[in-house]
């Protein structure tokens, strides 16, 4: 059989029409609102970023800061009462947010794929691993079940699952957590996505497995030449996998910078505080540094900077005026009135 038909074809990519022709992924002023009983709540507020081909963007932030909502917005998997209220998302020049729903089926799982946090619950317990990978391949590659099966087993082998032929017939509960996440990755990559969203893919795994999975994602990224959006709350993970980082707080962007710059010279007080609160190797302190207070509830977000009530450097204008992202260096922007 002809497997080469299933190989990624690098030439078939449509030419980008966005201003920056290098960027495969370009998100502009994305805004997602949840219409709750207590009033509309902006979970994602005016987020913009670009990811080049083969590049990894890390998105960091505490729980509830809108990291996952951003990803689901790009996939257009936001359900009622949520709604994408503004913004553009160009994937290889194609405007995804205004595409009709019929085309979305083609984009999801085809051009862009997603790996989820909990490999335990993200796989259907009553269908075999093989079936779940096959159905995606059949849908996007329009191939026969036999070809899909070969492709699935090939993918399982690629992600390092031992004896892939027998794993193919297994149900998710017969696999360990790490193996399930590998299977998830095999599934996500089975149709050669140009853009992969990894939503905390290692959070539910223990540390050794976590390292293996990170390594695997990085290996496959360079092999498939994908753009990756890596979401996590773990700064250690971010520093390892990403080329640039977007720090989010309360649905808004705080800081965006190349990874190295962000860790060595953070400009936003929140970024600095996050880096400060990491335990340091070789130093034993009685108490870890923390950021006082907690993320405000959706309806309690201040009118100005969302971080104002926890910020050490807050000024008077911070509490009633929203700081806009400003460039402090090439590729480095920060939304703060009083940056470090």
């Amino acid at each position, binding site marked *: 059989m002809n497997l080469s038909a299933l190989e990624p074809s690098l030439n078939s990519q449509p030419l980008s029409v966005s201003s920056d022709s290098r960027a495969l992924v370009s998100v502009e002023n994305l805004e997602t609102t949840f219409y709750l009983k207590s009033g509309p709540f902006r979970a994602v507020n005016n987020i913009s970023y670009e990811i080049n081909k083969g590049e990894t963007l890390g998105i960091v932030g505490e729980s509830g800061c809108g990291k996952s909502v951003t990803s689901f917005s790009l*996939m257009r*998997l936001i359900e009622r009462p949520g709604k994408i209220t503004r913004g553009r998302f160009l994937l290889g020049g194609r405007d995804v947010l205004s595409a009709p729903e019929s085309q*979305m*089926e*083609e*984009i*999801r*799982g*085809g051009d862009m*794929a*997603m790996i*989820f946090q*909990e490999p335990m*619950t*993200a*796989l*259907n*317990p*009553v*269908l075999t691993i093989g079936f779940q990978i096959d*159905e*995606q391949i059949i*849908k*996007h590659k329009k191939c026969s079940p036999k070809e899909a099966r070969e492709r699935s087993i090939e993918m399982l082998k690629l992600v390092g699952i031992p004896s892939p032929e027998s794993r193919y017939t297994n*149900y998710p*509960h017969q696999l360990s957590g790490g193996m399930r996440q590998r299977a*998830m990755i095999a*599934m996500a990559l089975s149709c050669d996505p140009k853009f992969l969203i990894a939503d905390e893919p290692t959070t539910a795994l223990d540390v050794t497995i976590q390292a293996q999975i990170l390594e695997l994602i990085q290996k496959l990224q360079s092999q498939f030449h994908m753009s990756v959006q890596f979401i996590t709350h773990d700064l250690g993970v971010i520093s390892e996998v990403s080329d640039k980082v977007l720090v989010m707080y309360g649905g808004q962007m705080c800081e965006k910078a190349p990874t190295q710059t962000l860790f060595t010279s953070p400009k936003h007080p929140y970024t600095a505080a996050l880096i400060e609160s990491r335990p340091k190797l070789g130093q034993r302190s009685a108490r870890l540094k923390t950021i006082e207070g907690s993320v405000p509830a959706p309806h309690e977000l201040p009118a100005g900077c969302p971080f104002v009530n926890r910020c050490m450097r807050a000024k008077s204008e911070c509490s009633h005026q929203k700081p806009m992202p400003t460039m402090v260096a090439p590729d480095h922007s920060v939304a703060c009135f009083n940056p470090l």
Partner: protein
Amino acid sequence: MGTYILRRLIQTVIVIGLISYMCFYLMTLMPGDPVELMIQSNPRITSEDIARLRELYNLDQPAYVRYFSWAKDIMSGDLGYSRTYRVPVQELMGPRLKNTFVLSFMALLTSLLIALPFGIYSALKPGSRVDYFVNFFSFGGISIPSFWLGLMLIIIFSVQLGVLPAGGTETIGVDHESTWSFFKDRALYLILPVISLSVQQIGVFVRYIRSSMMEAMRNDFIRTAKAKGLSRFVVVWKHGFRNALIPLITIFALSFSGLFSGAILTETVFAYQGVGKLVYDSIMSNDYNVAMISFIISVSMVLLMNLLADILYGFADPRISYT
């Protein structure tokens, strides 16, 4: 799997034995016995006759002795003799069982065919106008007593409109020239009892299907399925309904046995010649043999349907294995 089923079958037989003894004992506590009926119908009976009759029928023996002699007969295939109908119980129950089976099976089928689409639709669109309607009618269906509904149906369709028969099982004294006309005749008599049995069942099913489906659609793997670009149809049926089905199997299986033994009221209202009505009549007239067999059949139905549900469970959910 085979050993599991065998073990469960043995358990089932033991439970049937225990329950049949309890039923037997409870029946002996009921006021009156067959001899008393004979006394009433024959005023010139003497007290020696009574004693002789009681001895003849072993009615002077304690309950457990009578139970064991009855159980021995049952094991050897002799189900006894109906005192009311004056025919062997087998002959009496056979066609009645078939009638009740047809009635309860049709009611189950009708309920499922109606409840599934409505339950699933309202689960997919919770809070919509259709959902409100479906909920309103399912609560209505649950609340309407089936005997009252039966009477209303008779008044409307048989008395007022005169389109359907008010009761019975088939038109008596008609020679059907073809199988088709026989079925048509039977179906005509089934319509009203099936409706009155189904309405409540539909209400119950819709509630279960709706909540089970909503639960299934909330799972993370539904999101995964959508993120894979699968069509809504595949997401709903292959991923959602396939998982929603697992808890529903038990409910469907048990409701069948419930319909089977619970059709008493409906069968009585519609004078439908089924087991339910027979049980009622046999208890009222101290017809022990018939009542006992009916009890055992009802009990066995519940137990067998439970067993069936457990076996189907194993097929529906790969996480369950019977080894």
